[in-house]
């Protein structure tokens, strides 16, 4: 912007020379200022919640500032023990589902992706199109029969309805992501592996998978975030208090406290957002690449 704001003149060769370094510097400064203000507006609610989780209760709704008058770490202890189980129970339940989902997605989606990207078989094009179609299929269309199915299997109020679909590669988005990635790998590697006596499984395990690490990392991180955040299917399948996960616990907390203990509720919300924030910091590279190559949140 600094160099482009006033160039509709027909003297195109060097509009830049007209600006002294000082004006350029000033423009750049204003530009950054605007961006910083915009960024602050974007994350202010998050900072506000973080600070509210540490404020005394009477201060949360009285002062829009970020610095608490006294640091109430007790909000975290209160929140941790405010529900029928201590909060680690809910974290553990979420973690079990997340771990199962990550393993399921990594194994099943990479297998399907290898077949689509490298093997020749009848109806490949059609099956690939079907796979792409399922990415766009709303979960709401299949949730009721799925519920009936899992209910008949006796799986409602277990973690199975949340993990088994991942073992069966229903998150087709990740198949697509990995197909795109595998197609970018040189085919000569497969041929070299086959000359060295690798079968299809050997090629998949020893050649393709090690090279797919970035795609696998993207898959693992997205699976983590989506499963950790998932509310809809957990709400439907987990009604037992012992099986509640972090999002369900937060909802329970919110509905049960009414308007009393906001500091503790915010504290647990911060706890719930913590892991996502951690993955965001650690795995940003993979997240950005995953979005840029496939275009899904």
């Amino acid at each position, binding site marked *: 912007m600094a160099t482009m704001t006033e160039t*509709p003149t027909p003297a195109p060769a060097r509009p830049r020379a007209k600006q002294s370094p000082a004006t350029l510097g000033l423009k750049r400064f204003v530009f950054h200022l605007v961006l910083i203000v915009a960024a602050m507006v974007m994350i202010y609610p998050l900072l506000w919640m973080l600070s509210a989780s540490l404020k005394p209760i009477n201060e949360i709704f009285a002062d*829009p500032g970020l610095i608490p008058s006294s640091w109430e770490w007790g909000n975290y202890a209160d929140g941790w023990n405010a529900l029928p189980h201590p909060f680690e129970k809910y974290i553990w339940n979420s973690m079990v589902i997340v771990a199962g989902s990550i393993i399921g997605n990594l194994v099943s989606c990479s297998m399907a992706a290898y*077949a689509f990207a490298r093997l020749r078989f009848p109806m490949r094009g059609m099956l690939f199109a079907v*796979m792409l179609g399922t990415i766009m299929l*709303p979960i709401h*269309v299949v949730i009721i029969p799925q519920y009936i199915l899992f209910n008949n299997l006796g799986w409602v109020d277990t973690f199975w309805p949340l993990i088994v679909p991942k*073992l069966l590669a229903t998150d087709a988005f990740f198949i697509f992501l990995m197909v795109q990635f595998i197609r970018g790998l040189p085919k000569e590697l497969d041929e070299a592996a086959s000359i060295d006596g690798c079968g299809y499984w050997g090629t998949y395990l020893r050649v393709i998978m090690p090279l797919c690490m970035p795609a696998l990392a993207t898959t693992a991180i997205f699976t983590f975030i989506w499963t950790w955040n998932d509310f809809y299917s957990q709400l*439907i399948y987990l009604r037992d208090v012992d099986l509640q996960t972090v999002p369900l616990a937060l909802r329970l907390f919110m*509905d049960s406290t009414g308007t009393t203990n906001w500091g503790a509720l915010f504290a647990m919300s911060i706890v719930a957002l913590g892991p996502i924030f951690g993955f965001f910091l650690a795995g940003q590279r993979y997240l950005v690449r995953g979005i840029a190559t496939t275009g899904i949140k």
Partner: protein
Amino acid sequence: MTDNDVAVVRPKQRSSGAPPGPAASAPSPSPERARRRTRASIRTRERWAALSFLSPWLIGLLAITIGPMIASFYLSFTDYSLGYGEWVGGENYARMFDDPRLANAIKVTAVYTFVSVPLQLAAALLLAIVLDRGLRGMAFYRSIFYLPSLLGGSVAIAIMWRQVFGTEGLVNQVLAIFGIQGEGWVSHPDYALGTLIILHVWTFGSPMIIFLAGLRQIPTMYYEAAKIDGAGVVQRFMSVTLPLLTPIIFFNLVLQIINSFQSFTQAFIISSGKGGPADSTMFLTLYLYDQGFTQFDMGYASAIAWLLLAIIAIFTALNFLMSKFWVFYGDND
């Protein structure tokens, strides 16, 4: 994409005549026939391998996606409710026509989608263009703008939003500084949906990243050529950036419309699962949940699910039809 793919593969299939496996080089009485046999057996082996690699996905496709889809369609013609159900013909679909709550849910969902998606994409495009200048600190800004879209779907954020827009929440505290007495935004039927729309716009980070990737693809020589021809900033944006970006705008539009028709969590949390106040945040998905999993009227809920699918399909199709008039695919570069 699929057609391309087949086209790429076929010639290879033909030229793979002499596989470098040991069988081809082994001495045999009739090398020609042996080679043909090996080729056939390699192909069969490959098919079996493909089947085994695809088997988890295929089982999932049949048991968890296509099977339930068919079942859902069938259920939409019954009055099924956990364990019981009889064929009622088109009754569920007829019932939709005099269900004012459903009509309201469609309206709420449509307003939400058609207000929030354009705003969100406009914000995403604006920030992407601003950030595309390769400034110092660009990665930092990108991260900050992207963060909300990672967190936005979570219950914790919905809880936060509910308080931020509550009677004594952050928004009203800030308004009070300017001497304005704010409403309890989330508990007012006229404004509750607005807070959800703002929440959706707040998560513009992921389309922004896609726009940024798209902007990278535009060759700088186009800009240089435009500059030489005397085009100013605005003209360069209108005649270079925007046309070349239309495929990506289209892509984001299709994706975001499909997604926002399916929004659930935020409305559920902000309204305590009731779609209130006065059904003002009753999305179709919430109504479906209410009918299917609170009232256990699963037949009617299945019909609603198919209505949702039909609406999404119609808008996606319309999107594709209209794209002919505004999406520019650079044919001659």
